[in-house]
């Protein structure tokens, strides 16, 4: 086997393992091997890491594939990826009956504050719209039309923030700093006389939007619609920068998957990426993971964060409290969308919800398209003062 054929085969194996090796990666790897030699397995390993991977998440599949491909032996047990949890338990009731969804049964009477089946007439996200399998199913014509409509109409505005970049403004605008570059160019046209002082002033940028979508069992009836909404937010042209994360027992970043324009393809990719679909919720732990890995490093900073969840939590409410407080400090505003809120007499009794509420700027219902339209206006409106010490 020539070196290049070997590296090409390895690059292919890496792609199969889920590492996004770019075209030409194998050639770069071969080039690197020519420099470090192939005698030392360590050098080969690290040359491959440098040329074929592009993030810490690639490290484990890379090590695994490397051992399987070059080592010949079975990969060492310690480094093999953990089995992917309870694989998508998605056989949810398909007839729209109120049979309990998986993950819901061992919770503390979730039916107590859920809406009745005969909810408001605008209930497009009905309990009938349950998820049948991991690929989230194909869109019906109506859904597709609606997705298109959301895409076209619901350009989500998160409000603007002042940006650092300065752009030229009209000379009549009495703001900004002098723009000497343009002033000098103007002066050249006027025989060296500055007739007009050109100016530059800071521009504005839309705030980033972060969507955290609960995909646990109790949210299963809504999750598909919520992901469709998330897809609309991500794929809409001219939208603010949007990041989407799904959480249940773990946190999955779905932004890349949902960036495909075709809603079917996007939802299929999102479904394939989710392994905790329809399971329980560990709200506090999920929030912590999000804060640690993405929120505090930057994604939540100055962002509008929207959490779409019913607030059912099997973990420790104290952790929800602490992590929501942290998230509220990072974010510009936190909006909680709860599909249950629309039902008459709803009170946030779920422990997670109660713990989270003091740190939430706006608490809105999210059971229908109409309420999502309301969400759009909440996001673009002025921020409410949150009762952090409530």
């Amino acid at each position, binding site marked *: 086997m020539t070196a290049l054929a070997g590296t090409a085969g390895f690059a292919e194996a890496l792609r199969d393992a889920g590492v996004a090796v770019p075209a030409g990666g194998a050639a770069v790897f071969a080039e690197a091997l020519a*420099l470090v030699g192939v005698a030392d397995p360590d050098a080969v390993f690290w040359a491959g890491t440098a040329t074929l991977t592009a993030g810490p998440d690639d490290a484990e599949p890379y090590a695994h594939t490397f051992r399987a491909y070059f080592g010949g032996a079975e990969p060492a047990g310690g480094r093999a990826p953990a089995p992917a949890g309870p694989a998508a338990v998605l056989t949810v009731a398909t007839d729209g009956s109120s049979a309990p969804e998986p993950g819901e049964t061992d919770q503390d009477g979730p039916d107590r504050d859920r809406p009745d089946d005969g909810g408001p007439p605008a209930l497009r996200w009905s309990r009938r719209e349950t998820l049948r399998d991991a690929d989230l199913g194909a869109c019906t014509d109506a859904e597709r039309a609606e997705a298109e409509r959301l895409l076209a109409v619901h350009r989500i505005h998160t409000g603007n923030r002042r*940006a650092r970049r300065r752009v030229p403004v009209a000379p009549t605008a009495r703001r900004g700093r002098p723009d000497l570059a343009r002033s000098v160019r103007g002066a050249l046209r006027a025989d060296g006389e500055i007739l007009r002082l050109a100016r530059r002033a800071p521009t504005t940028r839309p705030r980033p939007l972060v969507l955290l979508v609960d995909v646990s069992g109790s949210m299963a009836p809504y999750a598909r619609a919520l992901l469709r909404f998330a897809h609309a937010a991500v794929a809409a042209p001219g939208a603010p920068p949007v990041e989407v994360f799904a959480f249940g027992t773990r946190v999955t970043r779905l932004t890349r998957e949902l960036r495909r324009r075709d809603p079917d393809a996007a939802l299929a990719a999102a479904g394939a990426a989710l392994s905790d679909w329809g399971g329980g919720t560990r709200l506090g732990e999920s929030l912590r993971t999000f804060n640690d890995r993405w929120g505090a490093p*930057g994604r939540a900073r100055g962002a509008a964060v929207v959490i779409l969840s019913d607030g059912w939590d099997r973990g420790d409410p104290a952790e929800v409290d602490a992590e929501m407080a942290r998230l509220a400090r990072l974010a510009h505003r936190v909006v909680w969308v709860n599909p249950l809120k629309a039902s008459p007499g709803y009170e946030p009794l779920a422990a997670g919800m109660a713990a989270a509420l003091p740190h939430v700027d706006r608490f809105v219902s999210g059971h229908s398209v109409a309420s999502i339209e309301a969400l759009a206006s909440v996001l673009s409106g002025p921020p409410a003062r949150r009762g952090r010490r409530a």
Partner: protein
Amino acid sequence: MEVVDGPASPAEVLDAFAAEGYLADTGLATAVLLAMRMPRPLLLEGEPGVGKTAVAQVLSRWTGGELIRLQCYEGIDAGQALYEWDHARQLLHLRAAEAVGPGPGAGADALESSLYAERFLVRRPLLRAISAEAGTGPRPVLLIDELDRADDEFEAFLLELLSDWSVSIPELGTIRATVPPLTVITSNRTRDLHDALKRRCLYHWLDHPDPDRELAIIRLQVPAIDERLAAQVAAATARLRSMHLYKPPGVAEAIDWATALAVLGADRLDAGTVASTLGLVVKHHEDEERVRSVGLDVLVEP
């Protein structure tokens, strides 16, 4: 593909780095070797305080190439990164030309070309990095620090520069690097860099060192420290990292901590010295509470 002279093996890089006070591992050494010889930019990612920026500083000291640093921030643009005309001096020049009156070669064109001469050009880091002459010494080390802080637009601009190492200045013409600078890009992953940029680069994720290497780093960086104290600091730092803190301490914090303990004249770690210096390794109020609730004794167990 051109191959540049450089170290022959990762071991050579390890030794050279160690001589400059940076204890690398084989992974980093291999990536550095490839970056020096292939030549491609080296993209380093990792938690704050693991020594990403120091890699470029060490490279510069080792190779003798000038360290050219571009600190990225939101809103950075070509004017701050590449070049700018010195407009204030240009205006003075215009005034002077006016006062002196029409001289030889007068006319608007002559005036304009005199304005856009090299002497009015302000070279920013990227232009300095690519306009270094070959054969005049070691090639410069270009450090593009915290690229994730810059906006998308700047990243796209940088990608173009990294692809062909040339810049065209409308008034002066094209400037092409005779030898590309040794480039190190760092990112804290506050956002994803574009795939196209990553494709141009060699990638290395810098992790926290294992306790043995951390001990060696502390002893190298803080020579005044008692050996047993250094071992205790390394062990305590490793324990802090396993406590699920908001901000686990990096190598930089461990070195700061060891330095502080050495300054204070401590010869071993106990609950008292930890209590008075905890702020050097734990930088969040919540983290401090967590550590104190677990008990400071846990950190100083032998």
